[in-house]
């Protein structure tokens, strides 16, 4: 497998996990309540591929894959696919465990209008970490 193919495969894996956000968020009423004052489209970059995550009053109503033509997002959050994969581990390693740990080390970037980002910081951090739950249902199903 060439390096380019591995990168593309990792990108597709990350996009598939982000595409699960509408369902994952709907299963977390505390999270959606926390985000009830946020209605906007957030751009999330997975390597070179932009996603548009549409949020209405804390609910994730759509995840669309770009490129987007003449579409404005108030703010964007981007990282390489391998960074997102490590961030989404059920028990991430030190330094991979928080969005701001990623931005501090330059492995993720946040740009645009930061007022809605900072005003909803816990919601956004928890929302982007929701794919960590994808590994949990199997454990919980045993109960």
């Amino acid at each position, binding site marked *: 497998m060439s390096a380019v193919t591995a990168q593309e495969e990792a990108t597709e894996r990350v996009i598939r996990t982000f595409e699960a956000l509408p369902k994952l968020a709907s299963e977390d009423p505390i999270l959606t309540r926390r985000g009830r004052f946020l209605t906007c489209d957030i751009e999330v970059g997975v390597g070179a591929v932009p996603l548009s995550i549409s949020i209405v009053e804390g609910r994730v109503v759509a995840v669309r894959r770009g490129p987007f033509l003449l579409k404005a997002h108030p703010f964007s959050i981007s990282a390489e696919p391998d960074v997102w994969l490590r961030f989404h581990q059920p*028990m*991430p390693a*030190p*330094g991979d*465990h*928080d*969005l*701001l*740990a990623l*931005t*501090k*080390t330059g492995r993720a970037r946040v740009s645009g209008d*930061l*007022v809605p980002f*900072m*005003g909803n*910081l*816990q919601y956004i*951090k928890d929302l982007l970490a929701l794919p960590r739950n994808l590994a949990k249902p199997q454990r919980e199903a045993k109960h």
Partner: protein
Amino acid sequence: MTPHFEPVVGRYLHLQLSGRPHRLYVEEAGQGIPLVCLHTAGADARQFRHLLNDEAITSHYRVIAFDMPWHGKSSPPEGFEHEEYLLTTATYTQMVVDVCNAMCVDKPVVMGCSIGGRIVLNLAAEHATRFRALIGLESAAYQQPWYDTEWLNRPDVHGGEVCAALVSGLMAPQSPAANRAETLWMYKCGGPGIFKGDLHFYRVDGDLRDVLARIDTQACPLYLLTGEYDFSCTPEDTQRTAAAIPGAEVTVMKELGHFPMSENPAQFRRYILPVLEKIRTQAP
């Protein structure tokens, strides 16, 4: 039915700090060597409630934890509404010395976390002979800033929520959810601009790299313990600091972050009990 009270006693201490009368809330429990605990920026002494209730510690130590002025149940000084709160290296250092004097404690151990971990380095440099030992949790002489503190106190972003959200990722994912939530609650309770004012010491006034050469661990032992998940004060920041202090002992704590004593008390005591035991059994 007998009421279930903790053995912790809370009282208000009146003293002068920086030439002004202050009313400080102080909790203590136990008997023995005084152990004065310094909380993190933007929080209060509730962070140490598990230590105050730990018989393995209070059977040998008189654990004392106070809310800094403007924090927790300690009042701001009269006239505070006409000034901006800004903590400095000088005022913080003198505060610790003055509180120890006012409490009449002789040769205490001082243990501070984060900004408290930073200030113990200055206490070691300037007042080593006053202390039996110094413990810095999440301590470094300097670390790289990772956000603009202007976000902490402005009208269009909720101060309590953003303070808590910023520090929430500094805890280890293994820490129990209830302890993590309580740790963040203290940040949500802070007065407006107080976390930011504490960080004036951390970010603007408190680069202590130049004082490390003056620290003599023969005069006062120095222990530095940092959680592996702390990306604000990283283990590397602490190790870099310790490398400039001959005799400083460093421990990197597994499955802990920036708030070891409150985010996972059970895990923290695995690391702090041996340190306290060593201090207790060594001649002062």
